[in-house]
């Protein structure tokens, strides 16, 4: 078993038009920037891009490669010029943008990977998020039915991996990468270092290899997306 591929082009080879693409990371931390660039270069179109931060899905929207984005942020928190472009794309029908409470988004992704079809969450009750969704009361509290969100492809970022696909994440970078690895037909991990099988502490593995299909080594990209005032 050897899940290591030799370069980024090979890592994203075969991603089809129309795929649902999950992108890991949070706020610039643990974002698979190399895989994002490789997928942009690969050429697949009509994608549905699922990510938290506009900085990951916006390039796909701007380059006409995504017909839909699903994210906690369909506007940009601190860059109004991006929000304006997205607003215009949505109003003109060139982009569908689904804003989802972030906890719901992650739980829908987890459910997809774990074989759960749907679940009831209290987030969004009494807000525009409840539109079109079943509402149901359990123990005197209202909940919304949310369904699993399956990915065709997941792009994730780790620190180290072995050829079995076991991934270790550094500090706060596990974030969404750990959640989504299980959810895609094809999960691709970019890591800073590939290490021999047996060198990772079995209790320290963040993403079990069973969830990972391809591993590629790529240099860490650092981008600061600092929001708000320092």
């Amino acid at each position, binding site marked *: 078993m050897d899940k290591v591929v030799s370069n980024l082009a090979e890592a994203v080879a075969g991603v089809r038009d129309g795929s649902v693409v999950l992108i890991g990371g*949070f*706020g*610039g*931390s*643990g974002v698979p920037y190399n895989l994002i660039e490789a997928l942009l270069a690969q050429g697949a179109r009509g994608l549905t891009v699922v990510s*938290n931060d506009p900085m990951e899905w916006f390039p796909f929207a701007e380059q006409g490669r995504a017909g839909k984005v699903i994210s*906690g*942020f*369909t*506007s*940009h*928190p601190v860059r109004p010029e991006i*929000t304006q472009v*997205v*607003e215009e794309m*949505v*109003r003109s029908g060139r982009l569908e*943008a689904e*804003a*989802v*409470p*972030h*906890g*719901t988004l*992650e*739980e829908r*992704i*987890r459910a997809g990977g774990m074989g759960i079809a749907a679940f009831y*969450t*209290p*987030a*969004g*009750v*009494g*807000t*525009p*998020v409840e539109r079109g969704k079943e509402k149901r009361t359990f123990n005197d509290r209202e909940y919304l039915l949310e369904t699993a969100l399956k990915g065709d492809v997941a792009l994730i970022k780790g620190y180290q991996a072995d050829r079995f696909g076991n991934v270790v994440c*550094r*500090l*706060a*970078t*596990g*974030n*969404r990468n*750990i*959640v989504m690895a299980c959810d895609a037909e094809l999960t691709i991990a970019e890591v800073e270092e590939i290490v021999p099988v047996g060198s990772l502490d079995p209790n320290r593995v*963040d993403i079990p290899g069973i969830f990972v299909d391809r591993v590629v080594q790529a240099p860490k990209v*650092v*981008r*600061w*997306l*600092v*929001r*708000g005032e*320092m």
Partner: protein
Amino acid sequence: MNEGLSRELVALRVARELKDGMYVNLGFGMPTLVCSFLPPDQDIILHSEQGMLGYGGILMDESQWDVDLINASGQPVNLVPGACFCDLATSFGMIRGGHLDISVLGAYQVSEKGDLANWQRGEQVVGGIGGAMELAIGARRLIVAMEHTTGGGEPKIVHRCSLPLTARGVVKTIVTNLAFIDVTPEGLVLKEVAPGITAGEVQSVTGPRLIISSDLREMEL
């Protein structure tokens, strides 16, 4: 009427609500500043949505920045002893499951019933929910920290929110540059005013009628 407290002093007043042993999430914007005013002799554990429990302050010295260690606003932070990490589904489970003692959020509007609107400006079709809907409903106590009025001087504390809601009936306390207000079943109770501000002045820029607390006082800062 003077302008009341600076953003930093609002954050300081909010920080006074945090006690030893509490787990607390600080939202985007003004709430983030609260982390600079924690009492140094108490264990207050700061939660960040991406799966971090126990960060300290925001790092100003760029040589210490590590993009693998940021808060949910994207700012570089350090860890306190006893910190730990988890994945984001678990992190939101902490929020949704009622494990946080306090959540501090910013707001566009708060209603007299404690409804919160903080994710979408009415004129847009796009918006930024992020973790706000879970943070609003999940924490045992939700404190809103915000400017008392909009840039144009309109009240942000209103009878009924005109903007899309984040959650209904969730806000317990509102701390602004002018006042400290509790949301109660009887209505909005004005507990404290900023130095040099009168109850009448607060009322003049607040939508609903305020109940003046019998022990109304000036904020201690």
